């Protein structure tokens, strides 16, 4: 148990390094230009991961042999995940990341829009050939039903209001 503070110290050092690495990674992401080769996350993060595993190994070597060791291992993993979560949260909370994620979304939409249009047209043509209703036609019918329900509801409301007025006027 005397080794516990040393292990905690080791882990704290690693956590600090993780945070510093995240900041460096964020800076790198921000400096990225479209012409530059894409960053390799594995090459960047592997040393950080290695150091974490080393800490883990040292902690295991120092811990007395009892099932409590497993609880410590679980706590270590929880802390590890928590540290990663905070580090990722920092990265995702930057302007650069927000820009990057929206660039990805834009690219997805740009790729999807023409393909989707073409696919829809082809499916519609095929359904027409077999004399079957298309998705758009079925959606149109469903929309009409929704509108009809809405109209009935409005009529019910008006009728209810008229009835309430009549009831109020009736002599008792």
């Amino acid at each position, binding site marked *: 148990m005397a080794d516990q503070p040393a292990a905690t110290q080791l882990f704290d050092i690693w956590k600090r390094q993780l945070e510093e690495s995240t900041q460096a990674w964020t800076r790198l992401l921000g400096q990225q230009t479209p012409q530059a080769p894409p960053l390799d996350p594995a090459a960047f993060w592997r040393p950080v991961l290695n150091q974490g*595993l080393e800490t883990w190994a040292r902690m295991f*070597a120092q811990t007395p*042999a009892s099932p409590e060791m497993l609880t410590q291992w679980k706590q270590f993993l929880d802390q590890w995940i928590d540290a990663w979560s905070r580090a990722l949260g920092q990265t995702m*909370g930057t302007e650069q990341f*927000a820009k990057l994620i929206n660039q990805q*979304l834009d690219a997805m939409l740009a790729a999807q829009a023409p393909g989707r249009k073409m696919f829809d047209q082809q499916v519609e043509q095929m359904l027409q050939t077999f004399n079957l209703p298309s998705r758009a036609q079925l959606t149109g019918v469903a929309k009409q039903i*929704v509108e009809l329900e809405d109209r009935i509801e409005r009529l019910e409301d008006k009728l209810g209001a008229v009835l309430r007025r009549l009831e109020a006027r009736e002599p008792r």
Partner: protein
Amino acid sequence: MGQERFADVVERFTNGYAGAVAAAAQASPETVKQWQQEFERNFKRLQNLHAMLTNPVQPQTGQTPREVVYKKNKSRLYRYASARTHRTPLLFVPNLGISRPYIFDLLPNGSFIEYMTHQGFDFYLLDWGVFGPEDDDLTVEHCVTRILPRMTREVLESSGAPDLTVLGYCMGAPVAASFVASHPEVPVRNFINMAGPIDFSKVGLFGLWLSKDRFNVDRFVDTLGSIPADLVKAGFKLIKPTMDLSTNLNLWWNLWNDTYVESFQALNKWANEYVAFPGEFFRQWVRDYYQENKLYRGELVMGGRRVDLRSITCPVFVVGAKEDYIAPPECVRALMDAVGSRDKEYVELPGGHISLIAGRGAAAHCWPKVSSWLGPRS
């Protein structure tokens, strides 16, 4: 080079582990007993894992007895069985899209709805439903000016009460607040906001990602029509990327515990059942609420009426969660300064967005707080 180092570390780790196990062989009887217990747990873990993989059980969620009071398109208004010792009915307005509302009645002895009905509240749940492409024209305004007025009228008619409490959770809170603020003629006795964002300038990561200068909501909706469930799922997974890892680690750790496994299966079923957004709803939600913060700034107009939060004068109770990354406490708390009520209270509880509504923490910290605040006012 990197790979060699990684292998070295793994080897050192396994050597350390083997040494520890060897030392355990010469340990005290107490340690041996602990190891035996650990082996039994591991055996049970494997048994439960095998059962989960080979014979998955469909968890029985939503077991509190209820009846459908009203149907409108996909939406349903449910009334739950209860002793109804409190006179004022409670209308619960959850989020539209994203997820299904059975999280509020997950399992017996672990259900917000069951808890509230046991406390004697006349509980109504508005289930917005799962919308299809025919509902792509549905807007937030339609929900506020057509669906919510109708549902509140049905609550009042079926309960026979002169007024009601409105409780909004998550996105349901700003939508319900928009309704209460723009319909002063509806007799709302109390308003509760549970983890509902109000000041969207403080809404955290989603606010940053969906900001006007980066996210083109028009292009998004015009291309996709509705927002598919998979995309909603991707957004929520991205906001907490380590969530699945910690969920699975905790599952393995507690896999020997049958009660934990049952709750996990129910919660996991819910957590993976995402619901699409109707296109126009998403457009208005993102533009008016996230990008322009119109609700908090008092610039929202719905059905020709201005949505002014200051016109909410009934008692207000606001509940925020300390580690809520979907609706951070500061954006939830903002309702306190925005309303015109004198009787208002804010509590900030431990845990995250879901911890207010499901799980042991919710039952211990949140539900009794809501019940004890609302009871004397109902």
